[in-house]
């Protein structure tokens, strides 16, 4: 028992010294870039409206941007975790939609959910590790959640079932949301071999194995197909 304890302490000290010897910021490393385009299935900007049979009038139909995807590397080197740009971002509730519809953040980031609508909203997620229920609150008020667990967080309004958004929480900074035509670029990835992946609510794309070398820029395109 005592011997096992001593070995554990020695192993811990060894690991600590190795980590301490590594550079503090990934920018100090040899790094390259990856860029490309994500081709998404054609999508119309409609929300997920349940048939409003029990309503006395037409609910608000607001177009939403579901055409964006997130490109990210699956596992990052140790030094990538040293200087995470955790901060504070907003996910507005406006015209019975979440704006933006897709957020990508690093762990430790706090997301504010202000309500700009004249009616109450109830922001909710049952995602494993990131579940929360902000309760009902009116226009002009905001609630916030700090995300400490990596994962995909589907966000909905418990009152208005057609309101949805996605928050992708990463434990490293090597991810990006595509622009309106699907282009993306991830800069300053430390040299090495990685798996590059795409997340899209519209479908799935094959992951790609990439090797980053110092000062180079790789072009990698994806094709998302409906699940």
């Amino acid at each position: 028992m005592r011997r096992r304890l001593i070995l554990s302490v020695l192993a811990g000290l060894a690991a600590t010294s190795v980590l301490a010897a590594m550079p503090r910021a990934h920018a100090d490393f040899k790094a390259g870039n990856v860029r490309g385009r994500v081709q998404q299935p054609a999508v119309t900007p409609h929300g997920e409206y349940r048939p409003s049979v029990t309503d006395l009038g037409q609910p608000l139909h607001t177009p939403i941007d579901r055409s964006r995807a997130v490109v990210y590397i699956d596992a990052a080197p140790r030094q990538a975790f040293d200087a995470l740009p955790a901060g504070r971002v907003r996910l507005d509730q406006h015209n019975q939609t979440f704006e933006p519809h897709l957020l990508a953040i690093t762990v430790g980031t706090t997301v504010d959910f202000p309500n700009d609508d004249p009616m109450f909203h109830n922001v909710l997620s049952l995602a494993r590790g990131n579940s929360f229920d902000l309760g009902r609150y009116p226009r002009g008020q905001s609630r916030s959640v700090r995300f400490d667990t990596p994962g995909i967080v589907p966000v909905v309004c418990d009152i208005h079932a057609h309101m949805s958004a996605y928050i992708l929480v990463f434990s490293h900074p090597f991810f990006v949301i595509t622009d309106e035509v699907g282009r993306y670029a991830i800069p300053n990835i430390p040299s090495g071999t990685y798996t590059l992946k795409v997340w899209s609510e519209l479908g799935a794309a094959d992951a790609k194995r990439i090797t980053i070398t110092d000062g180079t820029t790789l072009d990698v395109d994806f094709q998302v197909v409906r699940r």
Partner: protein
Amino acid sequence: MRPVLVCVLLLLPVPAAAQLPDHPISNDNGTATLGAEVSGSLSRRDNAGFFNYTDYDNDALRMARLRLTGEWRPHAQLSFLSELRAGTNSNVELAALFARWRPVARWNFDVQAGRVPPVIGAFARRAYGRDNPLVGIPLAYQYLTSLRPDALPATVDDLLRMRARGWRPSYPIGANTDTPGLALVSAFHWDTGVEAHWSNDRVDLAAALTRGAPARPVIKETNHGLQWSGRAAVMFPAGFTAGVSGARGQWIDQSALDARPIAAGVSTTQTVVGTDASFERGHWIVRAEAMHVTFGLPVANEPSFTKPLAADTGFVESRYRFLSRWQVAARAEWLTFSDVQGTLFGGAATPWDAPVRRLEGTAGFRVTRTIELRGGYQYNWRDGGRVRKLGFPTLQFLYWF
């Protein structure tokens, strides 16, 4: 099919929840949408008190139900909506079929025509699944009184004999078939006609002209009568909403009226005056409704009465959510009836139906956003009938998309 078996079958998909859709199914351009709700409730059998039986000939605490809802929006300002419903002891029914038209895109003003949702009260538009925080249905919308639209008492004593027998009341005039009585307001059968609705951030107004009565919505004309109904509500910034509503319509079938000529001026209308309120804030919801309902009932022979039969009902319910997935809810409610005087009960003034009180509590767990399990207990007290009080443990499974 036995309710237990139905519930077991309904529960089978739970382990495969990941494969179940959790959002409505729609075509590529979003103009056609299909939603569904599956629910199964389980409780002890009640073959004596019939506290939770509905005009669908089933027990609200022991039933399985499937609702398929569809919407087709060929134009941004025009949509067609429908609902197909199937459940224990009931055939597949087209429960809703109507057109919704918004004449001016920027106005929150809509006109709906067809078999349309009711405008009075608040519960009737959130009677299903996840919108109802408890397993049971409020007495006002579910409890079967001893009145029938197709059969009439000849005397007050005929009426008094049917106290607490709303499950199967029978009368000497009109139909002699076995059918259930009427709830004060039907939440599950919708009326046919046209309605208009306007709202802004603070006010919500709705009015309807349909062909049935609050307790007796119809598709086919049964008595040449019309129902008007309306509701006005004010939404306060703090999360408080208050509404008043009213309705008036002919509730007795012409076939029953024809069976015995009635004197001119005798009312055959049902009138509902109600108020509803809700407070929704944080993880709390508190709601309340109260209604005063009258039924004009022609009674041909002595002993008789001149005033319409009246009933008063109301409920207060509350729901609290915690830990994202859990909720607890409770409801307290009452239903009372005005007095009539016959030769029964020693000639004393007696409520024309037996008053009922009910308490219910439920705890719920959300397995996923669209799958919910609930368990609870409901207790009923009644001042009449063979069974005066009865409790029901309740279980419910809900799935919707």
